[in-house]
């Protein structure tokens, strides 16, 4: 569905992504992880058709994405960025409706079908009761759900998310990722998500891409990628990886400096 070939890109003169290739198939749930500055967001901006590649290509359904019109792209791909400022006091309903406009012509008006889709996405994101509220009145978790609802209103086949759960409490983290996972399972929605939290990535993603200094360090199932060797090498910190007793996926435990010292003392 999405093919990235020998991608090199960055900002101004600073090269961030140094030769990355991978491909995404329909129905995939892919997590992109890596330390700060590894190029996660840059890669994300490249595949969401914002940043132009310096070299290499990004193909969506075998078409160069820089040649696809924003309108046509938005009909198939919904993008949820990490930060979204909303300077004007739009209501939830108005905000979510904006997701439909890519399917409407300039002089076409809102139809019954659009209202039905609006109701649907509000319902699945549990935001029906918020519809008349203003965006700035919402809590962080509610706000993220509404932003997601706007993305769903585009009726995407590919959903790109950049750290959708950062700054959220565990209830909302799980609620949001569960919702996306369900759509992935039931409607074959293809998902690419940048995540900071390794344990969330392990629990939800079928495939993980671990980035380091603008390159792919490892790529594969959570079990293959999330080993203590890989993580210690890339993140330059000591971790212990155990098996999560509930889903049998890797679970990463941090080790503080104090404990590291204590361990050493025992050894001596």
């Amino acid at each position, binding site marked *: 569905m999405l093919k990235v070939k020998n991608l090199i890109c960055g900002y101004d003169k600073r090269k961030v992504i140094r030769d990355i290739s991978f491909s995404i198939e329909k129905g995939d749930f892919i997590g992109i992880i890596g330390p700060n500055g590894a190029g996660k967001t840059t890669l994300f*901006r490249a595949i*969401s*058709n*914002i940043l132009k590649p310096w070299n290499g290509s990004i193909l969506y359904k075998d078409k160069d994405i820089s040649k696809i*019109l*924003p*309108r046509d*792209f*938005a*009909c198939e*791909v*919904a*993008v949820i*960025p990490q930060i*979204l*400022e*909303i*300077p*004007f*006091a*739009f*209501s939830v309903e*108005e905000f979510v409706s*904006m*997701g439909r*406009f*890519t399917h409407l012509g*300039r002089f076409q008006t809102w139809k019954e079908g659009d209202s039905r889709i609006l109701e649907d996405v509000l319902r699945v994101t549990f935001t029906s009761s918020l519809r008349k509220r203003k965006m*700035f009145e919402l809590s962080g978790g509610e706000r993220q759900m509404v932003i997601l609802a*706007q993305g769903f209103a*585009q009726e995407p086949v590919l959903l790109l998310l950049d750290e959708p759960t950062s700054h959220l409490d565990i209830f909302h983290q799980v609620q949001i990722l569960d919702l996306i996972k369900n759509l992935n399972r039931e409607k074959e929605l293809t998902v690419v998500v940048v995540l900071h939290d390794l344990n969330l990535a392990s629990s939800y993603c079928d495939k993980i891409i671990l980035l380091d200094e603008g390159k792919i360090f490892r790529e594969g199932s959570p079990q293959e990628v999330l080993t203590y060797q890989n993580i210690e090498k890339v993140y330059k910190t000591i971790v212990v990886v155990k098996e999560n007793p509930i889903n049998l996926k890797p679970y990463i435990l941090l080790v503080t400096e104090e404990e590291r010292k204590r361990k050493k003392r025992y050894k001596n």
Partner: protein
Amino acid sequence: MDKKHILIFISLSGILVIVFVLSNLVGSSQLTFSKSIYYLFHPNASGMGRDIIWQIRFPRVMLGLLVGAGLACCGVVFQGLLRNPLAEPYTLGVSGGAALGVSISVVFAVSTISMASFAFLGSTISIFLVYAIALRKRFSNTTLILGGVILNFLFSSLVFLIFSISRAEDVHGIVLWLMGDLSSAQVSLIKFMPFFIFPAICLLFIFSRDLNILTLGEEKARHLGVDSNKVKKVLFLTASCITGICVCASGVIGFIGLIVPHFMRKVVGVDHRLLLPASCIAGAIFLIFCDILARVIIQPLELPVGVITGIFGGIFFLCFLLKSKHLELF
């Protein structure tokens, strides 16, 4: 659009008609109120009164309508595009740029039409300057307004530089005009204006849905299917043109583009498909109303209308600043 909005639009239109008619009836001349009504409804009658109404007052009110509507719409568009509630032709330095253009053209004594193009050129250059400054500083609210204020200072200094080195009789008329004045426009320009301003405002309406989405930022707008670069260019150019023409016809009238959209957001909400037409009508009402005040407050003398809008605007700005905790949340 529900019942509430229809009601709002009907009442706005009603108020516009009332101030429009009223504005034709008051003025500094000795014409009585009842005579004015008579002449207004008998445009084919003869006499001095008819000339005062139809040759002096009517074009002036028409000009107020066009400039008020135009500047208010520009305010809405600039605020949406720059995602900044304080943006408007005046605070962005666009009016200042246009004023500089016109001052240069007056010194070189060019024709009316080239004067308009000088004004347009000035406003376009300054909006791109502000845009470039803002782009470098990631569109932060402070830099944007600061940039506009600095440009305004720069331009007005240049305007005064031009004044100080040119002959007094050349610049005498322009001083009043700089303060914002509806009385000094040439009738030829007023006749031409509707054919430009109305289509330009219609163009803005056509893009109002895109403008809604653009308030979420250039990138998110692209994600939602709006060709941000193209739409931004169209809207910037159109709004700059409108500003240029308005400044050319009536000088620097500040704050309309600021007060009217803010007030209308309280009334109809932030959706630009309603906000733009509402601000358009309200802007016309506001400027015509201010012009009535400008004509009657110190009768038989007249004030430049820019003084009135400036006083209203300044007070509004202050109250807004003191009252609002979330300046960003408009």
